[in-house]
């Protein structure tokens, strides 16, 4: 019961953060709030027992994404340019996506319902049998790397590709950097 209250409170905090991100026009403040958002969502993942996702969120959301945002910020201006024009196409697409998502929600079992396959056997099996089946004591690792192995492989490939792309856009090698310092001195 208390976990439910905690979930509700964290979700409310997430909504507040999202609204605040939307309202800011200073991009640096937006980046900071994004960091808070990822910390909050990781807490929520821990509450929902999704430890593997919380781990990924810790590494990617709070660590790398924040630093990549900052790297991008160093190339652009701080202030967001505000457009007052209302785009009807965008509005239509948002409404369409939202209604599709709500339609899709009907197939999902109710929150914490006992017929949910996760509740009936999956979590129990992960907790009880994973050490015997896989041989790795850490539950998170065995779920991530074995039960959902292909899934994780795909995720890692996507993240790695994205990281290489961003580094090619933003990064520079050490030799190059020395040149920049001497250019600034002269």
């Amino acid at each position: 019961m208390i976990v439910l209250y905690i979930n509700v409170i964290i979700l409310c905090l997430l909504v507040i953060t999202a609204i605040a991100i939307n309202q800011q026009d200073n991009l640096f403040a937006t980046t900071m709030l994004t960091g808070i958002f990822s910390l909050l969502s990781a807490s929520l993942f821990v509450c929902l027992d999704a430890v593997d996702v919380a781990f990924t969120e810790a590494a990617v959301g709070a660590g790398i994404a924040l630093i990549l945002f900052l790297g991008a910020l160093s190339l652009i201006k701080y202030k967001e340019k505000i457009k007052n024009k209302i785009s009807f196409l965008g509005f239509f697409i948002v409404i369409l996506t939202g209604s599709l998502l709500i339609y899709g929600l009907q197939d999902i079992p109710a929150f914490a319902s006992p017929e949910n396959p996760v509740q009936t056997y999956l979590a129990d099996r992960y907790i009880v049998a994973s050490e015997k089946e896989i041989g790795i004591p850490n539950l998170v690792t065995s779920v991530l790397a074995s039960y959902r192995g292909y899934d994780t492989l795909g995720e890692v490939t996507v993240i790695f590709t994205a990281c290489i792309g961003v580094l090619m856009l933003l990064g520079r090698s050490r030799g190059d950097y020395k040149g920049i310092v001497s250019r600034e001195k002269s």
Partner: protein
Amino acid sequence: MSNYDIFFHKISLIISLAFLWVMLSGHYTPLLLLLGILSVLVVASISSRMKLIILDQPILQLYFIRFIPYGFWLIFQIIKSNIDVCKRILNPKLPISPRLVTVRSSQLSNFAKVVYANSITLTPGTISIDLDDSNIEVHSLSKIGAEGLKTGDMDRKITSAEANPYV
């Protein structure tokens, strides 16, 4: 730095990483130990390729052991100054008088200087802002905190811990 020294620093890095792995893992089957050794070696080779191995530290990095008795004294100090700052916050009149002071540090090694500056920051009420050769610029919340630093109690304790010949 000779190649010999660099080799010993690599070995000490591997030993400390392995110690951390064993401490955090908690499971000791042959397969897992093998995987642990592998990961330790990979991390060590990557960090030596990135030139992250710090060479002006003694071998095995056990230097910090001589600061452990000082650490217990520091925890006591932290609790004392915490209570002081909490009282100031909870006082409705907010009796603070912030000031910038400069204190001298009499330590010789960089490590001990960093320990001193970090201990100043760790006690609430004082924050070290800048560290020159032997002068630390400190922002203090109140007169008492600044005067407590000026007496040099903490400075003397760190210097004597640094010079401790028995460890």
